[in-house]
């Protein structure tokens, strides 16, 4: 934003609007910025969940073996675990590996499905937090055309 526009905005009484533009995180205070900006998997997990160790059981992840279009890769996660607190999706080699984090405040039935972008052939890692413990699963996806750049 240019200084002139900024000052005009302030003088026009658009103070609140200007501040909201400059500090969007004030509106979304809970968005885990450090975790999303982390460039490696462990850094993202540590920032988001406070731990990186996980057991590899009881989590199923469904993704295509080969994704022709990396811009749209369907991912399905299901688990029989009780008291699921959160389900986290990570694309290991994406520029920012943390893709999404689903947090449940009520009784989650242990299922989530979405579509993500994958820049290259890599593992999708799913981490489920249940009863304070982490459980994970991964699935390798071969990407023919990447979905993260022009």
């Amino acid at each position, binding site marked *: 934003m240019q200084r002139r526009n900024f000052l005009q905005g302030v003088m026009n009484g658009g103070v609140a609007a200007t501040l909201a533009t400059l500090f969007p995180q004030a509106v979304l205070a809970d968005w885990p910025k450090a975790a999303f900006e982390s460039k490696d998997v462990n850094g993202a997990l540590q920032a988001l969940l406070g731990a990186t160790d996980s057991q590899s059981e009881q989590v199923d992840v469904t993704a295509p073996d080969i994704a022709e279009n990396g811009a749209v890769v369907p991912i399905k996660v299901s688990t029989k675990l009780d008291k699921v607190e959160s389900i986290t999706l990570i694309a290991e080699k994406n520029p920012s590996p943390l*893709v999404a984090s689903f947090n449940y405040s009520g*009784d*989650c*039935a242990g*299922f989530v*499905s979405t579509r993500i*972008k994958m820049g290259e052939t890599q593992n999708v890692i799913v981490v489920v937090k249940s009863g304070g413990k982490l459980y994970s699963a991964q699935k390798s996806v071969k990407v023919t055309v990447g979905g993260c750049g022009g």
Partner: protein
Amino acid sequence: MSYNMRIKAKAKNGETEVKALMDHPMETGNHKDAKTGEKIPAHFIKELTCEHNGKNVMTAYLSSGVSKNPYVAFTFKGGAKDDSVKMSWTDSNGETNTSEVKIS
């Protein structure tokens, strides 16, 4: 700018499955405009929440790693026919959108 958001919620075997399809560009900030060569700024949904009868059941934090026009499906325990399911999102520009349906 207005965006469409379609939700379906269906109760089955004591659980409710919610499916949501949102219109959103989900720009990463890494793309360049093919004509001008200028970078397209990042613009993506950051937070998606779901309420069942006014009570929060799920809050999702998303990045631009989620595909354009995001599709999200999940289930929660409980929920009966004609209960309300409301989903709302806020994006990186501070824009918001909300949509509400009855469980079928």
